[in-house]
């Protein structure tokens, strides 16, 4: 009731129990024992999978290229540690389905021997194109969870006139504190990364948005940004999903990205704060993206903390390191509890997208009965997009997918705010994901039947053309024959006339 007049820049959202205190005050653990084997999927990004350039038995050095990027939207992957290639196989992916994907397995030798690193003498004097190239070659992708290749985004930024680089340090998911810790401990490196990004895009200024539940990180960033007038740090209210980049942008600037557009359309590029750090490492240290910080937390974790983890480390290895009681674990989640994926098994590798591993107990995830919708419209209030989740769900329940699309299904960001507040515990997001899947399937089917129809049409036309050609040919032959016959007759007639004469 106090919010009589809502801030139009801050629509919807929820405030969940944060659970951040368990990990936000502890330093990032860098002493995770090196695993014997590392499993590196070739697809850890949006776009085409990378193509392996190593074969079984090869010796690799830390940071060496394992698979190169394919096409414009793709990213390479590198060896997180030195050792030899044991296998290239299909291995369960960190995904709710745990379906196998192409994975390179490295047997580590424990030497951690780096390849020769290309460290520029003054990174900030590099040409913008060169910065983008180095970022792309290092396999840097968006570390907030979207894993879009960062170099592509920087390139888009350079082509469109960018006036603002927005650094998203919202970290609005409960439990997760990896960005928070990163800012507390490595603020100057992050700022160096931001300056490189600005130079890479020829953008004049940057704004960093940090939720106000991270005062220490805010102070650290403020301190680190002091020398640079073109980088501002702003505190934003703690309200999930503040870390939705479009929400952050709307809150900080009042601008909205058109529904069918990108941030670059309105002159903005948004990067995650951890991505800025990865850019720093890629350009200033010459190190590709082979490790990341992730939060290990949840009711079943004995030693909740942030851990610096090599990409490809199995989650079970990390859970053991953090003293997780597997008997108490009811659900393992990759990411945060709002949008993260429940994993059916812990023996899946950490990928670039993975910002947290949660081991939740049955108490954390109590599953009450689903009751009928009482149209309380809590979901409408909570939706940051401005959708009507209850109406969409009722359409989907009645299998009226088109009606759900008309209500804005495709604008849904699956943030889970609606399911979270629902007093009837209706799994609204589940409905929306199901419908999106069905629509995709339907689209595929339509595409297929269209293709088939096109092929049939083509064939019919071809047959018709052949038939017509054959007829024309037959006619020509007949005409020619007739002409010959006529000519012969005429010749005969002439001869007889001559004879008579």
């Amino acid at each position: 009731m106090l919010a009589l007049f809502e801030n139009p820049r801050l629509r919807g959202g929820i405030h969940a129990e944060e659970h951040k205190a368990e990990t936000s005050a502890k330093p990032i653990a860098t002493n995770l024992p090196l695993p014997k084997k590392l499993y590196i999927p070739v697809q850890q990004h949006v776009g085409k999978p990378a193509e392996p350039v190593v074969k079984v038995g090869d010796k690799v050095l830390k940071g060496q290229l394992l698979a190169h990027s394919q096409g414009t939207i793709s990213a390479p992957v590198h060896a997180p540690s030195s050792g030899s290639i044991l296998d290239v196989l299909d291995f369960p992916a960190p995904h709710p389905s745990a379906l196998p994907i192409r994975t390179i397995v490295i047997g580590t030798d424990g030497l951690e021997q780096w390849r020769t690193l290309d460290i520029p003498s003054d990174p900030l004097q590099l040409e913008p194109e060169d910065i983008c190239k180095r970022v792309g070659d290092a396999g840097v992708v968006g570390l907030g969870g979207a894993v879009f290749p960062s170099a592509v985004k920087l390139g888009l930024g350079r082509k469109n006139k960018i006036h603002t680089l927005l650094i998203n340090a919202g970290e609005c998911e409960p439990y997760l504190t990896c960005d928070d810790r990163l800012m507390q401990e490595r603020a100057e490196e992050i700022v160096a990364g931001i300056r490189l990004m600005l130079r890479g895009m020829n953008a004049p200024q940057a704004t960093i948005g940090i939720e106000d539940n991270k005062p220490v990180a805010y102070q650290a960033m403020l301190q680190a940004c002091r020398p640079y007038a073109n980088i501002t740090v702003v505190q934003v209210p703690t309200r999930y999903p503040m870390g939705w980049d479009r929400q952050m942008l709307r809150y900080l600037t009042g601008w909205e990205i058109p529904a069918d557009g990108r941030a670059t359309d309105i002159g903005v590029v948004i990067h995650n704060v951890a991505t800025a750090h990865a850019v720093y490492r890629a350009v200033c240290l010459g190190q590709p993206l082979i490790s990341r910080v992730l939060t290990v937390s949840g009711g079943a974790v004995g030693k909740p903390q942030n851990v610096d983890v090599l990409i490809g480390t199995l989650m079970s290895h990390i859970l053991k390191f953090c003293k997780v009681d597997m008997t108490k674990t009811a659900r393992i989640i990759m990411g945060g509890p709002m949008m993260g994926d429940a994993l059916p098994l812990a023996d899946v590798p950490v990928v670039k997208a993975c910002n947290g591993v949660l081991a939740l107990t049955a108490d954390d995830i109590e599953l009450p009965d689903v009751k009928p919708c009482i149209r309380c419209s809590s979901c409408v209030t909570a939706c940051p997009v401005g959708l009507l989740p209850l109406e969409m769900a009722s359409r989907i329940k009645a299998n009226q997918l088109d009606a759900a699309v008309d209500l804005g299904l495709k604008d849904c960001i699956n943030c889970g705010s609606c399911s979270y507040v629902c007093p009837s515990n209706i799994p609204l997001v589940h409905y929306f994901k199901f419908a999106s899947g069905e629509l995709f399937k339907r689209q595929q089917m339509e595409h297929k039947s269209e293709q088939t129809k096109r092929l049939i049409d083509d064939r019919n036309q071809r047959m018709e053309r052949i038939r017509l050609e054959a007829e024309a040919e037959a006619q020509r032959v007949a005409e020619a024959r007739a002409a010959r016959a006529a000519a012969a007759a005429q010749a005969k007639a002439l001869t007889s006339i001559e004879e008579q004469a």
Partner: protein
Amino acid sequence: MSIKPISGPHVLAVRRIDEIMRMVILALLPATFWGVLIFGWPALLLTATTLASALVFEAICLKMRGVAAKPYLSDGSALLTGLLVALSLPPWAPWWIGVVGAAIAIVLGKQVYGGLGQNLFNPAMLARVALLISFPIEMTTWVEVKPLLIGPGLIDSVSITFGGNTADAVTGATTLGLVKTGFSLNQTLTDILNNYNGLLAFIGWERGSLGETSSILILLGGLWLMREGVIRWHIPVSLLATVTVLSLLFHWANPQHYLSPWVHLNSGALMLVAFFIATDYVTSPNTPLGQMVFGAGCGLLTFIIRSWGVYPESTGFAILLMNAVTPLIDHYIRPRIYGRYRNGKPLDISHP
């Protein structure tokens, strides 16, 4: 560990349906106790009868629908409907009025539509209007204030509620009823309201429905629900504001014929309706703007029917009419989607 694929969110808020229902009932209790206090044991017996029959009818319907009854009976929704019906009845009404009211509300108002969350009309208001039209005498017999300790004892009260023994009851009309009859006798408002005490009306020391007399207690209950986030301000504020503004304008133009806002706000069921009936989730619009339109519509209809209609009290009719319009409001008034105009088209691309 379950391997069933399940989508996020993996944590949930704590407020469930049964808690919401419990809180609304709790917010109604002061007004209920006040009703029992000033109208005595018969009011308590009538309330108990109505609540019990609401639960019984709910159980029967759930059984007939083949649904497990326990989770629905314990969610408190039937109890809340029963309570709202009871609060709208004349306090000394016979027991069968309560039973029939509960039956109409639960069976015709709720379960025939498919139960919780499916009904088009507010069940309690449907019962109220149906009873008013079917049993006008019983529904407009208003007993004088007879506080618990001064009024009839428990045994007499049993014979009042269950025996129809209301011979020695002193009855009269409600303020709104007085005004209607007064006008038909060509009296002016000054004559009609010479005994009206604004403060007593606000506190609730006057004839009226069982739980509707005390504006202050209902208001406090409603404000508490707002503070707890169970209801939002849009409907009550727009409803009460519409009635206030309209009555102010007309009263200013002709004070001898149109009631002042104060009388309007503290008469009949207006307060209860504004905070507890119009805010019913199931039968009100989903969006804040829609809710304000809905509230204003309820206020407008209430004022029109009160001022120019046949019935002295009109909130029930106003609510039912606006309930019928709710799907239409929800169809036309939708929130603006991020990155789109209100009509659904994407925003134009422009460099700010």
